[in-house]
């Protein structure tokens, strides 16, 4: 039995569709689009103008504050426009549009011979100046995360290698093809926190990844691999911290309050590239999968590449038709109405489902069965929270700890009455938080 948390669900994982396919590099043909908000915090400010020529790796927008992150061009070419563009989460965002010249001429990156010669400040500034943010989805600027109030209290650096979302295999692909980069990234972060231990938390449905990481870290005194039970949402930050350390944090706390810092696989690789090679965040691994896709597989992509191009590279849709396209995983990803959106630092997958896989169920009366309660990793009572949400009872919603919801969707997944529990709770949570800000 691996380490785990209480609650959670076991959806069909669908990973075999794309898991062992060779990973290929995709060179984009069309325009690349860089939204100025690819992270939590202030949007970046453009430092290029329409008509400028840019090189691959050149900063095109600078951080808009401390909690913000600069953005870099992943191709060489010409700035075509700076305008509002649709993004994967549904809305629009001011974006820089670049026409690729196909040359991939790079700017100069300042590599360091030995990263141990860098002091903490230099390491943090290299990470900050490379635009590294949490690439698991949240997009929290990594330099902020690595600058906790009391660095001496950090005891665990946890690499989130759970990849608990069904269908996604981008982190898995990285762990199989380039685990050494992940380990080097961890080594750099550990240099910042001399008292900390590095733990790679991997779900036990990825034995090959566990074996590779174990082999690479067998002589490391400060790193270990933790085998986690395969269960969604094992990679949720609070759930992962609990599984590894048995420490619990709530919505008002940061992982650092429990002596932990959690970084996802791609983020650690980006940290390595930034600190060692001075390379900004421009590429990532991206999964194109789902039963509606002809050839599901993983790609090394240039951030900013259009979703449509990625789908075409994977052979397009099968003839059985596609009903739903999702940016991210099936549990927390965003359904999109259109493929004309760019990939960003935080997008990890394009998932295309056939009608059968996402059949719309009719919602029936709640029978109070409590399956949502069993499924909730936050030990909430989702059916009641959804009722309070639907009836606008914000006081009861807060009293029953609605704000602790991590929006993982386990309750909706488990509900036999097919209620839209997570949706109602998310909506209410947004309202309550908005009214608190006033």
């Amino acid at each position, binding site marked *: 039995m691996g380490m785990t948390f*209480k609650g959670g669900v076991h959806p*069909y994982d669908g990973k075999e569709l794309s898991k062992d396919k060779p990973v290929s590099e995709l060179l984009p043909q069309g325009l690349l689009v860089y939204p100025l908000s690819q992270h939590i915090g202030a949007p970046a400010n453009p430092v290029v103008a329409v008509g400028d020529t840019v090189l691959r790796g050149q900063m095109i927008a600078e951080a808009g504050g401390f909690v913000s992150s600069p953005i870099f061009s992943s191709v060489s070419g010409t700035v075509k426009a700076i305008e509002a563009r649709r993004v994967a989460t549904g809305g629009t965002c001011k974006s820089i549009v670049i026409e690729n010249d196909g040359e991939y001429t790079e700017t100069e990156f300042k590599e360091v011979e030995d990263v141990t010669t860098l002091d903490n400040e230099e390491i943090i500034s290299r990470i900050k100046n490379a635009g590294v943010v949490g690439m698991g989805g949240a997009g929290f600027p990594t330099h902020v995360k690595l600058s906790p109030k009391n660095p001496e209290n950090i005891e665990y650096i946890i690499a989130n290698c759970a990849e608990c979302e*069904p269908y996604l295999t981008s982190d898995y692909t990285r762990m199989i093809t380039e685990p050494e980069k992940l380990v080097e990234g961890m080594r750099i972060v550990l240099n910042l926190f001399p008292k900390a231990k590095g733990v790679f938390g991997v779900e036990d449905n990825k034995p090959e990844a566990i074996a590779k990481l174990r082999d690479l870290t067998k002589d490391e005194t400060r790193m270990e691999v933790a085998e986690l039970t395969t269960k969604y949402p094992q990679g949720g930050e*609070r759930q992962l911290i*609990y599984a590894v350390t048995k420490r*619990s*944090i*709530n*919505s008002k706390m940061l992982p650092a309050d429990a002596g932990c810092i959690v970084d996802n696989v791609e983020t650690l690789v980006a940290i390595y590239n930034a600190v060692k090679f001075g390379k900004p965040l421009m590429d990532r691994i991206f999964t194109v999968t789902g039963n509606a896709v002809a050839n599901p597989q993983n790609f090394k992509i240039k951030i900013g590449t259009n979703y449509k191009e990625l789908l075409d590279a994977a052979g397009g849709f099968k003839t059985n038709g*596609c*009903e*739903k*396209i*999702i940016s991210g995983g*099936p*549990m*927390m*990803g*965003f*359904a*999109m*109405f*259109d493929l*004309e959106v760019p990939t960003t630092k935080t997008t990890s997958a394009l998932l295309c*489902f056939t009608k059968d896989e*996402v059949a*719309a*169920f009719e919602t*029936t*009366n*709640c*029978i*109070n*069965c*409590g*399956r949502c*309660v069993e499924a909730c*990793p*936050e*030990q*909430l*009572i989702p*059916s*009641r929270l959804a009722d309070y949400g639907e009836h606008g009872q914000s006081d009861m919603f807060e*009293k*029953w*700890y609605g704000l*602790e919801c991590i929006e993982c*969707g*386990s309750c*909706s*997944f*488990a*509900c*036999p*009455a*097919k209620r839209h529990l*997570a*949706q109602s709770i*998310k909506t209410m949570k947004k309202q309550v938080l908005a009214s608190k800000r006033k």
Partner: protein
Amino acid sequence: MSELFNVASSPHIRSKDTSSRIMLYVIIGLLPASCFGIYNFGIRALIMIIVSIASAVIAEYIFNKIVGKKQTINDLSAVVTGLLLALNVSSTIPYWEVALGSVFAIVIVKGLFGGLGQNFMNPALGGRCFLLISFTGSMTSFIDPQSVDGVSAATPLAVIKSGEGLSGVNVMDMLIGRIGGTIGETSVIAILIGAIFLIIMGVIDLRIPATYLITFAIFAGLFGGYGFNWTYITAELCGGGIMLGAFFMATDYVTSPITPMGKIVFGICLGILTGIFRIFGASAEGVSYAIIFSNLLVPLIERVTVPLAFGVVKEKKGGDK
């Protein structure tokens, strides 16, 4: 935009569980007790079950038609209600009585409150208590399945209650079910087979039944007048409707608390109330009343048993921050 895709809030996948599948499991779980009841009490028991289920389903169908609601008979909950009611009546009552009980359960107890999920009281037990009060005579006369000519006989619990002591109690007969009682309540073994099936299928858990039975056993031991006498306690646990009630009716999702701690409080309430009704009441039975009474306490129980969310520490009163 050439093509538009379906857009909805996450999650985009759902488990295969549905309400009607859960109801189907409950029906399967009740089959052993039903079959034993038919074996025990003969053809009248079979007809009773059919009449009860049919009238429940028809009542739901007509009710939905009249009030203009979407048809819900496919969710199988009316079948469960009809079956449970039949298992809770004597095989000797007139068929129209069970039909009336079914209609009462479906229309008054469930339908008028908004249908499945909205009723605050277990429909089958609401129907049974309605019959028990209205037709006390026929509802409380049971035949002895071991007699050839089907003479009326007192149930073991009634024998104990009447003060005749424990000499006439045969625990083995009570486990197998070769005693007088309602159609579905007599065989502890048949009920447990169904209950184990439901536990394995994840339909019910042990919180409510276990706390109920343990609390009741302790209560009976303390106040029953026989002390913790093994024969007495076992007879009380195996007799009457407590096994059927604990595993199949107290665990009714709709009318039991959803909070994990609430389920335990609910079980304790049931045990104490059943003890009071059986030991201090006029009848040897008390399970049905204990359950419907506790059903009324559910909103209150839930209010005081809201679990702490993950990672949230109980704030000390007047403490710092």
